């Protein structure tokens, strides 16, 4: 048998049961793996690393020495989701993203959810990500988040929870695609014996979604990147190339006569849709941060007139903010008159004195996050912190309680990875990518992120996390 470290007790493992036997949907893979010597898998691991270096998949890490680029660790043991489980998840994700887009349309128009008392007004209008410039701006199909990344985790019983909704510029989809390509290259035989649902058509779905987000019929679409020093620059270049559209920086675009133009060697060319991978704050130095050299002066005025589409829309950040997250299940009830299919992680809002009190008394057991934070920065993982770290965080929390929320430390499910000594369990999450145009479309699965250190719960690539290929097994056709 392939050398194997069993899953930890009280933790849900995607592949193995507590008694060491394998879950049914992993049976075929497990059989295949047990015919492989450990050395072969180690050789494949080195081959994958070499290939990724050649493709150039890297990730710049903030806080390390300037210009550091690092390979995101890739693990070749797939995370497998059975078809039935996926279809239930997919239904839940669609429901959630639909409600979130309806929420954004509502708060930027009639604000029904506030007038009917379901959400405190100051939670929305006092939020720095609520953009006054979006009031009464009409968008094609009333869609604000064309591209969403919904982060999902499972607890020790295997129940799914939404950890956060990413509605600004979610990244990682290039790894989903490249991981699959790598797996097909390393282990082609696996794909003839396992009915793995394809993901390679994501770029064409994305392009269709972006085109549907325009008021014109044959729109010129570009991808706006902050440039090569951005941590996700590889992904920007990758997606532009896959979609066959121009990759541009702010200085390549300008505004004139109420439209946006791209400078080309053949003269100015009109731009109809901008898939932007820069934050709201940097889009237009005349409307937002004036020190931004990344954006396009005048862009907001063209956007408000409906003469250019921006994906995702300006102002989506108010809906994926951690202070709004606790209200999402009720949004689903309010806008869709349905019960939420996917659950939220229980959340304490530290701005409420009672909830703050609870959090302060249970810090060693909780995860505390900044309300506007992302990428795993500025958070406390109680059980993994020293008494000193907790004491320091307590002071920060007391100084600005409204800046924090807290959640129980969920164990997160594990999935084995390959190590030098055989396979061993590591914690994972799942980020499916959701495309909202005239309808909602997804490719099966998404990006599985892995905390590569034993016992670690932090899966963010900015914090040293790795990735895996994610398989949704289609029902075998009879």
């Amino acid at each position, binding site marked *: 048998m392939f050398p194997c470290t069993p899953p930890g007790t009280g933790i849900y493992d995607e592949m193995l049961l507590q008694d060491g036997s394998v879950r049914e949907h992993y049976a075929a893979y497990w059989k295949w793996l047990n015919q492989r010597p450990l050395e072969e898998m180690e050789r494949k691991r080195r081959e994958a690393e070499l290939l990724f270096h050649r493709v150039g998949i890297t990730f710049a890490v903030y806080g390390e020495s300037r210009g550091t680029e690092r390979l995101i660790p890739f693990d070749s043991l797939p995370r497998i989701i059975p078809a039935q489980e996926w279809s239930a998840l997919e239904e839940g994700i669609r429901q959630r993203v639909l409600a979130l887009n309806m929420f954004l349309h509502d708060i930027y128009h009639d*604000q029904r959810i506030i007038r009917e008392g379901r959400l405190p*007004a*100051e939670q929305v*209008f*006092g939020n*720095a990500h*609520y*953009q*006054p*410039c*979006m*009031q*009464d701006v009409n968008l094609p199909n009333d869609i604000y988040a064309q591209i969403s990344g919904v982060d999902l985790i499972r607890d020790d019983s295997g129940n799914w929870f939404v950890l956060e909704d990413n509605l600004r510029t979610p990244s990682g989809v290039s790894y989903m695609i490249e991981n699959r390509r790598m797996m097909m290259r390393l282990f082609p035989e696996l794909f003839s014996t396992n009915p793995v649902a394809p993901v390679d058509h994501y770029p064409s779905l994305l392009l269709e979604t972006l085109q549907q987000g325009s008021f014109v019929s044959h729109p010129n679409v570009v991808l706006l990147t902050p440039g090569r020093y951005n941590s996700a620059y590889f992904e920007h270049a990758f997606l532009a190339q896959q979609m066959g559209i121009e990759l541009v920086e702010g*200085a390549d675009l*300008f*505004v*004139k*006569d*109420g439209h946006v133009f791209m400078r080309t060697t053949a003269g100015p060319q009109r731009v109809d849709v901008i898939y932007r991978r820069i934050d709201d704050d940097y889009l237009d*130095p*005349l*409307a937002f941060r*004036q020190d931004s050299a990344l954006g396009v*002066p*005048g862009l907001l*005025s*063209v956007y*408000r*007139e409906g003469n250019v589409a921006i994906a995702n829309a300006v102002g989506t950040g108010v809906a994926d903010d951690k202070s709004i997250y606790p209200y999402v299940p009720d949004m689903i009830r309010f806008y869709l008159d349905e019960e939420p299919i996917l659950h939220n992680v229980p959340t304490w809002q530290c701005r409420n004195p009672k909830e703050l009190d609870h959090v302060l008394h249970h810090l060693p057991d909780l995860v505390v996050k900044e309300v506007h934070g992302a990428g795993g920065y500025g958070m406390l993982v109680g059980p993994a912190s020293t008494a000193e770290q907790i004491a320091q965080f307590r002071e920060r929390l007391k100084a600005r309680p409204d800046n924090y929320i807290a959640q129980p430390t969920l164990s997160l499910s594990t999935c084995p990875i390959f190590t030098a000594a055989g396979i061993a369990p590591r914690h994972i999450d799942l980020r499916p990518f959701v495309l909202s145009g005239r309808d909602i479309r997804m490719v099966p699965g998404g990006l599985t992120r892995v905390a590569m250190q034993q016992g670690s719960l932090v899966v963010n690539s900015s914090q040293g996390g790795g990735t895996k290929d994610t398989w949704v097994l289609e029902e075998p056709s009879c």
Partner: protein
Amino acid sequence: MRLTIEHRTEYRYEQEVAHSTQYLRLTPKSSAQQRVLSWDLDMPEQASRSTDAFGNVLHVLTLDRPHDSISITARGEVDISDVLLESEEQRLSPLVFQRFTPITRADQEIKDFAARFSGQRSVSQMAALSAALIEKMPYTPGSTIVTSTAAEAFHAGSGVCQDHAHVFLSCCRVLGIPARYVSGYLCTDDSNHVASHAWAEVWLDGVWQTVDVTNQVITPSHHLKLAVGLDYLDACPVRGVRYGGGIESMHAFALVERSEVPAEQ
């Protein structure tokens, strides 16, 4: 009262500018307080007109050929009524104006000062805040620069209308009262006085109430409003970005005069 306005803004650049884009908020809107009779903008090229987030008239001027100066002149005639309160169809929630911006962020000094005016939310309380503020930071041209923040000006203990408005907004926001920046013109009897002006409006009892800290006025009768926003950057008459040009010199000239109003028929 009828006002005639001429407002010229000139930019000169040491070197040629390759490309520039300006947001112009140089066109007043008619409202209960003011009726615009005529208004024209003279610019080097045609600008596209739209409305911004706060309902202001916005012109976007792009010059995409080399230039070493830009001259913009606004001219018009406006009737100012003695209606005290501004009527406005604004769908944007006033709560948005409770938000701090980088310029209006309150430091501990401002927080402590504002705390003296907590309690009742009334026009008289706002007038008291305004009076205490002008005493704390007297009108002193040249004591601050255009990019000074509320905290910097308050700490310096002096400022111009822009600083007065910013500190006032900062205090209101500390107190949880929505308040907004107003850019416009003031007609004064002293013709040497700079006619471009800035003041504040606070949201009290469902209306925007004027507070002009610099002139200690809460009943505007000589104020012509151009634009409103969270702070100077949202409402300033000209805001631009340019590529190239080197050192810039700016000259603004604004003249506001009372003109004869024909007797009512």
